[in-house]
């Protein structure tokens, strides 16, 4: 822990504890909000450039500065190698606009998955090679198994386990399974000073 690593590690570690791989592709970084302690592995792609072009009427009325956040990610999220986060887009009152993608805390996104949801809650596990369709809403404590295709606009309530093409409910997260969504431990295992996983 104390040993200084060579200055150019595989990851860029920010003040808030985010570990962003140098080989990750973050487009439009100024529109990507990271809550801290989030791991972004190599070859991850986040489309922060696809910002909202039509502001909600309430916002423009209040005169506040337009919020240009395209992708916001909470704390302790883990974006595995090769996954892609992009804001969903649709026609809104005759014009096309992207809408922000909001991701909560402790969200795991598996390798090669593509997430175009409107919101992903906290404590969500998205497996590998999953396609989450546009404007899907995934609530807290949801497990999406590998290879699932979540159709656009689908709502997945809390404590669901879904799989299949298109996704369907295949089970419920048991009471004793809540702790398995915690990503604090896996956070420590990557970065420039990776630590072994605690047993």
């Amino acid at each position: 822990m104390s040993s200084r690593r060579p200055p150019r590690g595989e990851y860029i570690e920010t003040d808030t504890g985010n570990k962003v791989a140098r080989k990750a592709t973050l487009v439009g970084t100024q529109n990507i909000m990271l809550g801290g302690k989030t791991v972004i592995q190599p070859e991850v792609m986040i489309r922060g450039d696809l910002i909202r072009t039509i502001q909600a009427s309430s916002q423009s009325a209040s005169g506040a500065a337009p919020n240009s956040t395209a992708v916001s990610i909470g704390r302790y999220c883990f974006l595995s190698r090769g996954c892609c986060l992009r804001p969903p887009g649709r026609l809104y009152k005759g014009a096309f606009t992207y809408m922000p993608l909001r991701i909560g805390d402790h969200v795991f996104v598996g390798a090669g998955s593509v997430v175009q949801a409107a919101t992903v809650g906290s404590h969500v596990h998205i497996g590998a090679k999953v396609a989450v369709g546009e404007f899907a809403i995934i609530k807290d404590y949801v497990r999406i198994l590998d290879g699932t295709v979540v159709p656009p606009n689908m709502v997945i309530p809390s404590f669901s386990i879904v799989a299949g093409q298109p996704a369907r409910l295949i089970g419920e997260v048991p009471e004793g399974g809540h702790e398995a969504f915690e990503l604090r431990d896996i956070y420590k295992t990557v970065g420039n000073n990776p630590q072994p996983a605690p047993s």
Partner: protein
Amino acid sequence: MSSKRHSILPPAPAGSKPPIHFSSSITIADSALLTGTHPIAIHSESVVHPRARLDSLAGRITVGRRCVVHERASLGAVVGTSGRITEAAVTLGDYVIVEVGAAIEAGETVIGEGTVVGVGARVGAGAVVGKHCTLTPHTEIAAGEVVPDFTVVYSNGMRRTDKRGAAELRNKGLARQIDVLRRMIPSNPAKFA
């Protein structure tokens, strides 16, 4: 808008800049990857997202009008024996959307007008996908397969016919989307010339 971070991509292999035929109205991201030896033609108002990969090593690549090729989509190549097949083109009709991570292999592969190739879908070499088809995410179309017009391929290979008759509406929506993308994606066609 944001060209500072995605400049870390590995440089394309030197000396393999394909000849290009770009319409002046296209939008192509700086970090799109164009490789190969055969010509790559992109017609008017089409959009190529960052990190899309167009490889004309096996044959000519033609992208129709008002197409959108999303990030990490891959057109062409994959044909292992590139030298043997003399003509292994990829042709996209007009209004085709190739979603994130979809792959269309080279080999006289045709995607018809108004078709959507879903996220992570794969169209094998020589497949001919008809007009206004929808390949849902993770669909696999085998090499040489022919998919009739208005087919929806869903749930791991199930097929049905799209009877909505919403093609025109969809194309209009796509035009709006392209309008927006054109403003968002800094286009740099000169880079590929």
